[in-house]
């Protein structure tokens, strides 16, 4: 049924992560497993069951310096604006007045909750009894401040990005918890395929390292409590894994219609070739042990890209380091790859940089593009004790250096959404006909 489908090129990358405030620093850390885990410094976490996280360190917006706009931006928006500037600079192209309506923006937005400082002010003013006094709310500072309203709004990140870069085409924000970033990349790819726009600024951003954010995870016992060994706390697929390491940051990519990217001589990191989405519809926090759900998203992404499992050389796993995720994901990879499971290299970069929540899928999309472009696969750090239920060909100790023809990125979220993104090496695109064309 499909004929002439437009191909999508990745031409620009940007990252702000717990292990580096740019692409190269982050990449170097991921190759050797230099962990971003450390005791929490953003607030006094001494009473919490989890007192460690992977914070973005020494962050100052350098490329993004619009002070007026920064007043409207919360911590995660600042990461986003910086990473987006990096990506556009890297691509060497920005929206202009003439082509602004042919640019889109698709983002995975983090949880929308007030900053703790603002909540504390509101509590002091009108909640000291433990209940909200709605009449006192009328004279509350944060509740009356339009800046606070904007900063906490679900579309604020999107609003700042489209304004900053003058993007006037399709603009959207998605949130499927930890699958958000992956779904944003899939959405962005489809906007170009459908011809709605020619270029998209796509990414994700999040920061939940706050008293309320960490409290939410602690209450669910979803996070590692290895408070004395923060750098070893995230150990995906290891038999002793005990929860994820909360992280924060942003990842952005510039996507372009393939022929337009070629025509302007852009450096193409990879083709964003396929997207698969499924719902596990099992439990809100888990997929089943047999991998049902993730299996479908991975198969869909491969089919969408017209790629067979035997062509995939690298999987950037969701690999959160929780007991259930890693078990379920391993089963899914085995089901999809069959005998090829012994060949395909797998790593979870969350082992090094922690779990960036709504930004995770976007940052890991950047990682896959780099793996293809540089022919290097980052390691699954902290892997010591094999789990017989998570038998995979993990990249351990040393990064693997080899041609990566196809890379796959998994992202699974609370709520049961599973996202899978597939990328193809530019060399592999040459010689392929149009999508859906007879071989």
């Amino acid at each position, binding site marked *: *049924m*499909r*004929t*002439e489908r437009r191909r999508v090129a990745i031409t620009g990358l940007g990252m702000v992560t717990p292990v580096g405030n740019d692409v190269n620093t982050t990449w170097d850390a991921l190759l050797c497993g230099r962990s971003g885990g450390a005791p929490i410094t953003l607030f*006094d*976490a*001494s*009473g919490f*069951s989890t007192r460690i996280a992977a914070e973005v360190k020494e962050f100052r917006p350098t490329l993004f310096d619009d002070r007026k706009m920064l007043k409207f931006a919360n911590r995660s928006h600042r990461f986003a604006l910086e990473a987006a500037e990096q990506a556009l600079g890297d691509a060497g192209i920005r929206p202009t007045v003439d082509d602004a*309506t042919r640019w889109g923006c698709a983002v995975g*937005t983090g*949880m*929308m*909750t*007030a900053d703790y400082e603002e909540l*504390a002010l*509101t*509590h002091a003013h009108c909640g*000291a009894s433990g*209940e*909200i006094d709605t*009449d006192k709310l*009328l004279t509350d500072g944060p*509740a009356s401040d*339009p800046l606070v309203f*904007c900063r906490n709004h*679900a*579309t604020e990140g*999107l609003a*700042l990005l489209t*304004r900053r*870069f003058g993007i*006037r*085409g*399709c*603009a959207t*924000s*998605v*949130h*499927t*918890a930890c699958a958000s970033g992956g*779904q944003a990349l899939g*959405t962005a790819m489809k906007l170009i395929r*459908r011809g709605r726009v020619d270029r998209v600024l796509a990414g994700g951003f999040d920061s939940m390292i706050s*008293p309320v954010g960490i409290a939410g995870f*602690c*209450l669910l016992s979803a996070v590692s409590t290895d408070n004395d060994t923060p750098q070893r706390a995230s150990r995906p697929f290891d038999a002793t894994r005990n929860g994820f390491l909360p992280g924060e940051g942003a990842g952005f990519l510039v996507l372009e219609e393939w022929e337009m990217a070629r025509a302007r001589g852009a450096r193409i990191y990879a083709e964003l070739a396929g997207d698969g*989405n*499924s*719902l596990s*519809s099992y*439990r*809100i*926090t888990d997929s089943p042990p047999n991998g049902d759900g993730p299996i479908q998203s991975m198969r*869909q992404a491969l089919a969408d890209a017209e790629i067979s499992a035997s062509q995939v050389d690298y999987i950037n796993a969701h690999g959160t380091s929780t007991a259930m995720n890693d078990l379920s994901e391993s089963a899914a990879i085995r089901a999809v790859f069959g005998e090829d499971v012994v060949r395909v290299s797998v790593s979870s970069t969350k082992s090094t940089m922690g779990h960036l929540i709504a930004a995770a899928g976007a940052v890991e999309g950047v990682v896959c593009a780099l793996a293809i472009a540089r022919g290097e696969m980052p390691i699954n750090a902290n892997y010591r004790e094999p789990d017989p239920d998570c038998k995979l060909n993990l990249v351990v100790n040393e990064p693997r250096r080899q041609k990566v023809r196809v890379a796959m990125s998994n992202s699974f*979220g*609370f*709520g*049961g*959404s599973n996202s899978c993104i597939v990328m193809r090496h530019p060399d592999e695109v040459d010689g392929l006909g149009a999508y859906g064309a007879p071989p």
Partner: protein
Amino acid sequence: MTRNKVLITGTGAVCAAGMHPREILDVVLAGRTAIAPIRQWDTSNWPTRVAGEIADLNPRALVPDRKLHKLIRRTDLVGLYAASQAIEHSGFVAWRDTLDPADFAQYNDRTGAMVGSGGGNFQSQYDFFPLMSAANGDMQTFGRDLADSVNPMWLLRTLPNNVLGHIGIQYNLKGTNACITNHSVGGMLAAIEAMEALRAGEADRIVAVGHDAPVEPQMLLCYHRVGLIASEALRPFDAARDGSLLGEGAGALMLETATSAAQRGAPIIGEVLGGGYVGEGLGPLSIREDGDGLARAIAMALEDAGLHPADVGMIVAHGNGTRRSDASEAAALRTVFGAGMPPVTGFKWAFGHLIAAAGIMDLVLALAALKANVVPGIATLRRLDEACADLRVSAQASVPRGNIALVLCRGFAGTNAAVLVRAAEP
């Protein structure tokens, strides 16, 4: 490029004006407004005191599974209710039950859900107030006593994508999915994304739902402080309009490919013909006076559907009642339709602005109005603003000039969306 037709086989809606699309339309047609004094908290000292609350909202009537009630918020109750209504209306569940296990699993893998959600709220965070009072600024105490004070499921309750996750579990939906958190256009974008996914063959049927419950103290106050809330009534396009009013509710559409609908001989309610959305790129609250973004969204939707302005039988405007949005919306409609404007109406005056549910509710009601061959009047309209003079809006009902409706939706971040639907011939 061939693409699948996208048919509508079920609808669902709930808001202050009723628990069902037809019931809500009847309230609108009767010229009654469901806007009433707020009951969730005492507003006697508040500068704004009315909204479209669902009176006596009964969680069990909306979501029978009581175990769920501790895991979800008010916004999720209405979303799950509307989504269930659309799914049950379409009748696919009973048909699916006749399939053998392999086909049953395959059917579920090809059934998706797209949701537009309002995102986070302020009220949930007050759950931390007792703990904060006990800790009295000491974070160590806050952390230590956390588990004794706050519901362990707190984070799950606040997830913006709860309707997606729970509707999936309830009906075993396992296909493509999205949760769109794009302010007022979220629900409508869910319908557009569902249309696109069905066209491209990514699924065979998708429930699209938008839901929101913005009537909470701090949210209402924020809208009021940025100058968007009306003093007493929502009067779209009226010379004396002074803002919008918040409402709570949800709308849902069961969308299917023609093949999927034909497979079980499903009754067809209508068809999604096309859609489009664009941003204005001006920041969170800015609106262009010339309505450029909305005009481009309409043009995109018409082109997508292969239609001309003359094919549009009625327009359901965003009509949120604020000075700037309505004036710029009128400007956009002038740009696209000129002298050939079909009758224009809007529904927010009757039950408030449902924010993330607004656009998809309007789609549901547009289909019901087309089926009844009526363009409902805007009962709160007293004197048309000169800036909106060439809009064919009226306080009285009229007759659509065809069975295609153009439905418009606008949101923060300057996002504008437009969708064209056709009602099935009676």
